[in-house]
C-alpha cells in the first residue's frame, strides 16, 4: 500500500467574487522511500497541493475536496487534534523562504527543541542533545554554541539547514519540500540539495519535492508530475518524462531549460 494516496484533490479560492480552481482534480500515489517531484510554473497549483494535503490552507476562503490517505489515515476528514500530531510530525514541511519560516525572536535551540518536544516527547537535556545531533547532522558547525544564536545571525543556507534539522528531528515518514533551494545562491543550492538527497536515501524518506527547476528534479526525484493550470498533465519516471515528454507543456519546459544549458561546461 502506498504511504500517500491522493484522489481527485480539488482546491478552489474566491477572487473578486469569481471562483478560481487552483487544483482541479489531482491524483497521485507516493510509495515509502520514493521521491515524487511536482513541477510547473507559478500559479500552476503545486503549492496549493502541498498545503491542502494536511489542511494547512485556511478553509474558508479555500474549499478543499477529494481524498487524501496517509499511512491509513484520511487526512481531509479526520479530527483536527490527531491531524496536528501528523503535521510537522509524520509529515514535515520545508519551505522556500527559511527566514520567514523561522521565528525571529526565538533562538535556534529553542525552535529545534520545541519540535523535538512536540513530536518525540523528549524533554530537557534529552531534547537539547537531540537538537545538537540534528543540527550537526545537517552541517551546522559547533552546533552546541549555535543553539543560542538567533535566526538573523545565520545565512540563508544555514537557516535552511536549521529548517531541515527541525523537519527531520520529528522523524517524519514524508517530507514535503516546497522550492527548498529557490531562494538560495547557486553554490549553496547544490549543498542543500546534496544534503536533502543524502537524508532521503539514508532514512528511506518519502518526499514530495516541489520545484520549477527540471535539473533539481532530475537530481533528486524518482518520478515527476508536471502540473499546469491546476491539473497534472504528465506523470512518470523522471528519466522517461525528460527524455520523451508527451505533453506540449513539458516540452516547452524542456526547451526553456535547453536554451540555458552550459554546453561547454558539460563534461
Amino acid at each position, binding site marked *: 500500500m502506498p504511504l500517500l494516496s491522493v484522489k481527485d484533490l480539488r482546491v478552489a479560492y474566491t477572487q473578486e467574487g469569481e471562483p478560481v480552481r487552483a487544483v482541479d482534480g489531482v491524483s497521485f500515489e507516493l510509495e515509502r522511500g520514493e521521491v515524487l517531484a511536482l513541477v510547473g*510554473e507559478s500559479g500552476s497549483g503545486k503549492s496549493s497541493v502541498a498545503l491542502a494535503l494536511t489542511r494547512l490552507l485556511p478553509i474558508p476562503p479555500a474549499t478543499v475536496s477529494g481524498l487524501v490517505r496517509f499511512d491509513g489515515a484520511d487526512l481531509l476528514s479526520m479530527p483536527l487534534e490527531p491531524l496536528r500530531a501528523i503535521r510537522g510530525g509524520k509529515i514535515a514541511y520545508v519551505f522556500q523562504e527559511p527566514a520567514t519560516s523561522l521565528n525571529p525572536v526565538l533562538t535556534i535551540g529553542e525552535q529545534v527543541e520545541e519540535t523535538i518536544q512536540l513530536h518525540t516527547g523528549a524533554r530537557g537535556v534529552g531534547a537539547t542533545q537531540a537538537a545538537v545531533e540534528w543540527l550537526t547532522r545537517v552541517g551546522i558547525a559547533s552546533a552546541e554554541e549555535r543553539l543560542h544564536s538567533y535566526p538573523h545571525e545565520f545565512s540563508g543556507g544555514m537557516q535552511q539547514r536549521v529548517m531541515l534539522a527541525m523537519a527531520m528531528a520529528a522523524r517524519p515518514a514524508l517530507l514535503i519540500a516546497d522550492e527548498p533551494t529557490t531562494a538560495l545562491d547557486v*553554490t549553496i543550492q*547544490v549543498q542543500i540539495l546534496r544534503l536533502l538527497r543524502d537524508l532521503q536515501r539514508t532514512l528511506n524518506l518519502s518526499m514530495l519535492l516541489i520545484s520549477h527547476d527540471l535539473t533539481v528534479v532530475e537530481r533528486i526525484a524518482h518520478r515527476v508530475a508536471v502540473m499546469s493550470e491546476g491539473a497534472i498533465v504528465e506523470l512518470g519516471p523522471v528519466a522517461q518524462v525528460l527524455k520523451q515528454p508527451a505533453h506540449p507543456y513539458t516540452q516547452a519546459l524542456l*526547451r526553456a531549460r535547453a536554451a540555458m544549458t552550459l554546453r561547454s561546461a558539460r563534461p
Partner: protein
Amino acid sequence: MTPALLEAIGVSKTFAPRERWGGGVRAAVAAVHEVTLALRTGETIGLVGESGCGKTTLAKLLVGLTAPSAGEVLMQGRPLRRLRGPELLKARRSVQMIFQDPMNSLNPRMTVEETLAEPLLIHRVAGDRRARIQALLESVRLSAAYRSRLPRELSGGERQRIGIARALAVEPDALLCDEPIASLDVSVGAQIVELLRALARERRMALLFISHDIRAVASLCERIVVMRQGRLVEDAPTDQLLAKPCDPYTALLLRSAALDLDAVPAL
C-alpha cells in the same frame, strides 16, 4: 580606437560605518572594490556573481545612480560626474537600464502608453508619438491592444517587456539589465533572454547583463565577468571561461550551476 560606451576605471564604492540597532558599529563595507570594466559598441557582457557581491551597486555606479567613493566612470570617454544639464541628459539617454522586478519599476497608475510616452517627453524625442509607441510595442513583440493596460493587468513577462520597450524608447547604445529574469518563470525568462538577444543584434545595442545565473549569462553573452565580494575575479570570452575557468571561484560557480551533487562533499 573610439572610446567605450561605458567604462569604469578603478571604481570603488564604500558604505560608511553605521551604528547598529541595539549597540555596536557595523564596519565600513566595500561593496565595489577597484573595478575596471569597459562596454563597447555592440558588445554583450554578462556580469555574474552571488547575492551581496556588489553587482547591483556596480550597475548603479555605471549609470550614475550612485557616486563612486573612488575611481571614475566614463560615458563615451567623458567623466560622468562632470556632466551637467543637456550633456548629462544625452549621456543618460545613451545608456538605459531594466530591473529585476518589473512591477516595482513601473508606475502602477500609468498605462503602458503613458509609461512609454514619458521617456519620449523627457528626452524630447521628435516624431509622431503614437506611431513610435506602436513601434516600441512591436519591437518587444506585444500587440497594440496593450496600450491601455495598467501594470497590474500584465503578467510578469509582459511587464518586463514594457520595461524593455521603455528603455528602447530613447534608442540607447547600451542596455544595462539588472537580474531581468530572476523574478520570472523559467520558460518566460528564456523568452526574455531570446528577446534581448534579438534586440541587441537588430539594433547593434550593447548589453551588460547582470545575473546570479551563469547559465542565463552564458547563453546570451559573448564575454563573462565574474564578481565576488566587490571585486572582479575573472573576465574572459564565454567559451574560454566555460571550458577553462582560471579563478577557483568561477570553477565553483560552474560546478554548482551544473548541480553535480556528487561533486559536493557529503557530511
